[in-house]
Every structure is written in structure tokens, then in C-alpha cells.
């Protein structure tokens, strides 16, 4: 925690211009979201292939409330959190009864349905063309430049890590790890597995919603792609590449997968080939993820 805070505080010394600030901000936002998703996938062992749906809902709720109804951004963001949390709560119980590939199918379907609603309800969302989002203001002050956004994102990331660490060390965290090991054994030991799964699903959805809102305001524009299947996959990949059930692994995964497209953009036309190859190779050779593999090697030597 302290190390992360120190890194966030010292990083600006190494960031030469706004382009690097931009990359750092995107990394921070993705990291905050993936830390939440890691609670669900890494700790509880429940896959979600539709998490970008919640990002889209959060982002669009903020965008629509602020630009069409003149709400203050903070209020819009809070309402978005509440709504996404409520939606996640409603669907969580029936969906999380499913296991393995059936769970993957249902969450994937959920994400795609959200995506299609965002595309088709164009009178509200602007359809495929997307919509403009006004800048983020708080008590009359506007987050105007990359520097301001950098500190805001850093703060949100720290809060996200703090919340996640607390959950992991709480009875909820122990219950999640127990049900990851064996759901039946956890039930036999008296853990109400459904309730805990629902709770962590809602928490991770709210994380996604917050970041969705922030990203919409930061970029100033939002399109349905933010809730698309590919984005969901990217999020899951961040969790798995960094290392499952490791909060800092999630941060590392978010950093790598956010920077990768920037690096690959030099190979014009070949980005997809490179991205697909890297995805496959990482999963084949480091199936446990980067951080846990390095940690294991460290301990051995």
C-alpha cells in the first residue's frame, strides 16, 4: 500500500510530457477497475466475460445525466454507482448459481445485451457514434488537465486497493477463498456461498461503474465499444496476466495491457497479430500470471 502510494507520488518526476501522463492515467483507471474484478475472478474464482457492460452502464449513466439533464458530475457518478450496484445485485443471484462455462456464457450474454442496448437506444446514447461528455467538476473546480486527472486517478486507485485489501482480509475474503477452493466444502463449513458471491459481484460491478464514469469524463467522449465483448476480454486478461488472487498482480496486469497497444501501434497493421500472440504465449508459459510466477521463483532461489 505504502509502496503504491510512493510510486504514485514519485512517478510524475519520470513523466516527461502529457502523453506519458495520459498513459499513466489510463493505467491507473484500468488498475482500479481490475483490482475490483480480481476480487471476483482471482479470489472467488467466478469468471465474468461481461464486466465491460458495467463499465459502459456507469459511463453512460454519467454521460447522460450530466449532458442531457444537467446533473453535477459527482451526483451522476454516485447515482450510476447505485444503479449499477442494484442491477448487479438483481442479476447476480441467478447468474452466480451457474458454474464454469455456463457462468462464462451467461456473463458474456449480459455484457453483449448491455452493449446492444447502448447501440440501439440512440435517442439517449447517440448510438454507434457515441456522445460527448462534459468535463468533471467538483465544488466549482474543473479537472482540466492531465496533471489534475493524474492525482485524482491516483487517489481513486489507492482507495480501490485499500478497499480490496480490507475485503481480502475480512471474513468475506476468507469466505471467498474458501469457496474458490471448494464451494461444497465451504457450504458444509457453514459459509453462505451464494450471499458472498453476490456481494463480491456487486462490489466489482460498482468498481467498474466508478471507473466507467471517470473515463467518460476524462476522455470527454463515450462510445458503446467501452462495453463491448473485446473490452470485457481485455479486463479479464489484465487479471490473469498480472496474476490471479493478487491485488498488486492486477495492477501490474493493468499496466502491461494498457501500455501494450501503445507499444504495438508502431507495428502498424500487425497490432492484432502481435497482441494475439502475446496473449497466447503469456498464458501458455505463465499460466499463473506474471507476479505469482516471479514470486515463486524468488522464493526458490
Amino acid at each position, binding site marked *: 500500500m505504502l509502496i503504491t502510494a510512493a510510486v504514485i507520488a514519485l512517478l510524475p518526476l519520470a513523466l516527461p510530457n502529457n502523453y506519458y501522463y495520459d498513459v499513466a492515467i489510463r493505467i491507473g483507471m484500468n488498475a482500479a477497475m481490475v483490482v475490483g474484478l480480481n476480487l471476483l*475472478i482471482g479470489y472467488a474464482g467466478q*469468471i465474468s*466475460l461481461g464486466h465491460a457492460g458495467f463499465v459502459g452502464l456507469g459511463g453512460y449513466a454519467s454521460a447522460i445525466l450530466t449532458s442531457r439533464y444537467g446533473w453535477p458530475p459527482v451526483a451522476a457518478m454516485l447515482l450510476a454507482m447505485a444503479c449499477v450496484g442494484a442491477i448487479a445485485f438483481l442479476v447476480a443471484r*441467478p*447468474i452466480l*448459481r*451457474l*458454474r*464454469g*462455462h*455456463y457462468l*462464462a*456464457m*451467461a456473463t*458474456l*450474454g*449480459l455484457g*453483449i*445485451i448491455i452493449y*446492444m*442496448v447502448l447501440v*440501439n437506444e440512440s435517442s439517449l446514447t447517440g448510438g454507434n457514434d457515441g456522445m460527448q461528455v462534459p468535463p468533471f467538476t467538483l465544488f466549482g473546480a474543473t479537472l482540466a488537465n492531465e496533471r489534475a486527472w493524474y492525482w485524482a486517478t491516483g487517489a481513486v486507485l489507492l482507495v480501490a486497493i485499500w478497499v480490496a485489501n480490507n475485503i481480502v482480509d475480512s471474513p468475506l475474503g476468507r469466505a471467498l477463498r474458501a469457496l474458490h477452493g*471448494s464451494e*461444497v*466444502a465451504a457450504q458444509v463449513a457453514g459459509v453462505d456461498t451464494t450471499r458472498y458471491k453476490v456481494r463480491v459481484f456487486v462490489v466489482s460491478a460498482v468498481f467498474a461503474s466508478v471507473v466507467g464514469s471517470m473515463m467518460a469524463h476524462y476522455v470527454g467522449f463515450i462510445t458503446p465499444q467501452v462495453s463491448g*465483448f473485446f473490452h470485457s*476480454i481485455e479486463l*479479464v*486478461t489484465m487479471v*490473469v496476466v498480472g496474476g*490471479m488472487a493478487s491485488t498488486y498482480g492486477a495492477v501490474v496486469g493493468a499496466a502491461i495491457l494498457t501500455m501494450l497497444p501503445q507499444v504495438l501501434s508502431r507495428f502498424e*497493421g*500487425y*497490432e*492484432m*497479430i*502481435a*497482441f*494475439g*500472440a*502475446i*496473449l*497466447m504465449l503469456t*498464458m*501458455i508459459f505463465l*499460466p499463473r500470471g506474471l507476479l505469482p510466477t516471479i514470486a515463486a521463483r524468488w522464493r526458490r532461489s
Partner: protein
Amino acid sequence: MLSQALQFFFSGLTSGAIYALAAIGFTIIYNSSGVINFAQGEFIMVGGVVAVMLTDAGVPLPLAIAIAVAVAGIVGLLLEKLAIEPAGNAEVVTLIIITIGASIFIQGVVQVVFGKGQRALPPFTGDKPILFGSASLLPQSLWMIGTGALIVLMLAWFFGRTRLGKAVLATAHNRLAAQLVGINTRHVLAVSFVLSALVGGVAGVVSAPITLTSYDTGIMVGLKGFVAATLGGLGSGAGAVVGGLILGLMEALVAGYVSSAYKDAVPFVLIILILFFMPRGLFGERVTERV
């Protein structure tokens, strides 16, 4: 009124045939390896794209089709040998990401070779619609439905009557027991990937004249194939066919009577509702998990 319903039935059957073939591809691989292959749609895309490229280069259609299907089969073999086999006994999430990585990789290659545009294959036997009252059916639709039915019959024969087919089934049932009676299960894995890719390639070639083809057409067909396979109950061959046809028909009915904008959402709404009430699909076996 009636002819309109007939029209929807035709279009539902046509797309249902492709979903069924995609679902069969998922089922074959799932049964032999437990992997959900998210690159299944790319087999279909590769079949269509290669056929278009060859006919554009002047290769006669039948030869182009044969080569396209063979290329899809080779892609399947490479996927198994280079990505799935080295991963060994990885977790479900890991395997899902590997196949998605493969899917992106294949799309990337096709994008470089074929370009980003959409192209169509010429119809096999003209494009003069056959009239049934005031409902019409394209000859290519007949090709799609007929080929789908033929493939289902051939697969039934393969799994029921041939030694290799039975070996695949035995491995699906219990890998260890299959190894004990002398079946080379690693070989079976490769066979199932090639078989599934060939089925996908055929689906891609017969559908390319109607649906058009480009590097990114595989994703949606693949996902819908996954829905169809889940709808029927993962691992059930008959379930995959029925699931595919139900999907196609439901889609056509919703597009015709309710809203064509939400046509693509139909499969996903349907599967979520069904899984809420039947967590193992329509024909999935009720299994008791050993703990």
C-alpha cells in the same frame, strides 16, 4: 400472413443451419478436451475468406471451396498443436484466454492478407429465388440447409460407425479409461480440432455468398454458436443442432415481428433466461459432481 410466416421460417432455418454447424464445432472440441474454443468462429471466417480470395484469383469455385475447407482444417490442427497442447492442464480461464488470443491472432493475419473490406462469394447455383406462394427462398439457402443436414448425417456416421469416431467418443467419456484400452488420446485431441475446423470451414464457405465475409465476421457467429451449444446443453451433439435451429428461428421471428435492431440480442437474452431456469441447458445431463 401465412406466406410472411413462411418467409421468416426460411430465413430462420438458413441462419439456424450455420449456428448449428458452429455449435457442433464447439461440441466436438468441448467433448474431447473440455475446452470452449472461442476461435471457433474464426474457422468459419477463414473458410469464407479463403474461398473468396481464391475465386477472385480465378480458381474455379469447386476447387476454391475444397482448398478453403482444407485451410480451415490446417488452422485447427495448428491451433491444437501450437496453443492448446503446450498449455497442458491449465485452468478454464487460462484456456479461454488462449483461444481468444488465437482468435485475435487469426483475425490479425487475415486482416493483413485479405484487407479490411467485406466481400462476397458468388452463389453456387445462381441467385434466382425459388417462389413458394409469395415467400421466396434463395438457392444458396438451400445449399446452406442441405449442407448442414448432410454434415450432421456424416458426423453421426463418423461417431457411430468408425473406429476413430468411437475413439473420440470414448475419450470424451473418460480419458483415463480410454488411455487404458489403448486409445492415443493426444491423437484424438488433434482429430477433434481438425474435424471441428473442417465443419467450421464448410459452414463458412456455404454461408459466404449470403452473409458476406471479412476478417471480423467470425466473432458474432462464433458467440452465437456458443449460445446454441449451451442452449442444447454443452456436449450434446443433438442438442447443438436443435439449439442452432431454435436460435435461427427465434432470431428471424423477432426480427420479423418485433424489432430488427435487437435481432442480434435475441440469442443472448434467450440463453440467459434458459440458464436461469435450466442451469445445464435444454438437453444437458444432470450430473452429480464428485467432491
